[in-house]
């Protein structure tokens, strides 16, 4: 469904991503793992068009989106929940969620309502904080809001950049459950995680990225069992 070929991204003269190729098939959970500064975030940013690409092509559902503007890419059905949450601090929780629906113009009022209900069910906390401004939420609540906001556009593929960062174990579990649920609902997930073991354990496939290059790829379980991976990313 999403296909990246020979993607390179430079910041000035630094190559953050070098010739990465990867593929995400429909209905899969694919995870990217790698150390700090490996280029994972940059890859996602490149997909959603927020950074200029030095070379390479990205196709989504057969359409070349390499040169599309970010808002158009989103409207193709690619949702990106960015690193550091980036919720809108002075919009209320409800308005933040509504902002999420802008990316999918085909949504009608009743559908939006349904989606809203669904998200409130997933994150009851958000219902409680509905009228509170996004900036006053705690870190974890903001993370939930960011994910929920992404789900509001009912995307075909959802890209999550470190969704468990700073979350309580119980929420992390919930989020991983949620990711499975999203997948089971027929959606595709591209996941970046520091918590590599959890990520690999739910992923269908995974890529290991180091200093801008894909160094390993394989089934989630296989990678989990790979001794090199264990040593480098799972703490022994």
């Amino acid at each position: 469904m999403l296909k990246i070929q020979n993607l390179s991204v430079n910041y000035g003269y630094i190559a953050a991503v070098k010739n990465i190729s990867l593929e995400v098939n429909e209905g899969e959970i694919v995870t990217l793992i790698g150390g700090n500064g490996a280029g994972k975030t940059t890859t996602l940013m490149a997909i959603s068009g927020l950074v200029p690409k030095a070379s390479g092509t990205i196709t989504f559902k057969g359409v070349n989106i390499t040169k599309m503007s970010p808002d158009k890419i989103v409207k193709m059905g690619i949702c990106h929940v960015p690193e550091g949450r980036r919720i809108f601090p002075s919009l209320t929780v409800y308005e933040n969620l509504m902002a999420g629906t802008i990316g999918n113009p085909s949504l009608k009022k009743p559908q939006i309502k349904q989606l809203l209900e669904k998200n409130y069910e997933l994150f009851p906390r958000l219902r409680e904080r509905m009228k509170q401004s996004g900036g006053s939420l705690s870190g974890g609540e903001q993370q939930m809001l960011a994910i929920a906001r992404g789900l509001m556009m009912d995307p075909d593929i959802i890209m999550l950049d470190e969704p468990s960062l700073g979350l309580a174990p119980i929420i992390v579990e919930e989020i991983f459950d949620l990711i499975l649920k999203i997948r089971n609902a027929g959606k595709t997930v591209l996941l970046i995680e520091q918590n590599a073991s959890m990520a690999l354990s739910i992923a269908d496939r995974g890529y290991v990225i180091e200093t801008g290059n894909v160094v390993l790829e394989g089934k989630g379980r296989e990678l989990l069992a790979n001794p090199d991976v264990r040593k480098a990313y799972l703490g022994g």
Partner: protein
Amino acid sequence: MNEIILKLKSIYDKYKIIIILAGSILLLLVPVIFPKSYIMGIICRILLYIILAGGLNVINGYSSQFCIGYAGFFCIGAYTEAILALRLKINFWLLLPIAGIVTAIAGLLICLPTLKLKGKYLALVTLGFSEIVRLIALNWSSLTGGPMGLKGIPVPKIFGIEFKNSLSYYYIFLFLVAIFLFVTRRVINSRIGRAWMSIREDEQAARSLGVDTSMYKALNFMYGAFWAGIAGAAYAPYTRYIDSTFFTLDEGFNILSMAIIGGMGTLIGPVAGSIVVNLLTELLRPISEYRLVAYAILIIAMMWLRPQGLFGASKSILAGKEIVKKARKAEKEAAA
């Protein structure tokens, strides 16, 4: 541009003493080289604005408090000098620091209640303050001469030499600029300057490290105001006549644009800003009524081409994103 600056800097470091010596001699000889009062008048104006833009830069560039009504401080300094010189016949040399201190106190007064204000709100307060000061100068006729202004401000004297035209007054301005740069450089490179910069980069973090941000912000404002006061006090006897129309908001914007065009957060920035802006106004003169149009276009062009200003602190929150990227590049290369 960055490369040129770096190159210039390395040359400077190498021949520091010779350059400083030759530079000072050259500076002292300027009125001999250009014995025209017109040219010296422009140079005096440049020097005056170096102090003003530099003082403003200490506020806006080093602590990121956003002051756009700097003309108000300039006004207070000038009126303090003029009033005390005319009424009490106090000596100019004594009045310089007095005006500086009076203005610094004014700075403290407006800054104390507004310490909590951020960015745009503080900007507006300084703007309002500047207008209020000007209107007081206009309306308090018994003290300030009101709309009639104050005339016949005595010229400074030292060892029997009268500084009564631009050729001689040049030395007063030059002296003040030298002191300003020397003192400010030392303050900036100390714990005080670091505290100001930490407030600029992240106030909350600064506070958590024990920096009394209110105190340092106030100090910063006072320091900036002090130099505006000095500049005002030097300016009043230079023109020998002042009235409230000298200190409009536009004057404040003018100073601000010099500070920004030259580049904030560095000492050299306002110097460059003052030179460039003042020369521009002179050089554009032949196109008469299109002069300000061209000037405006040039300002915008400069911001487009070099948003951090000619010599802006590229390593600061003041610098734009582009600049950040470039700096990162240079550093990565250095680290590699």
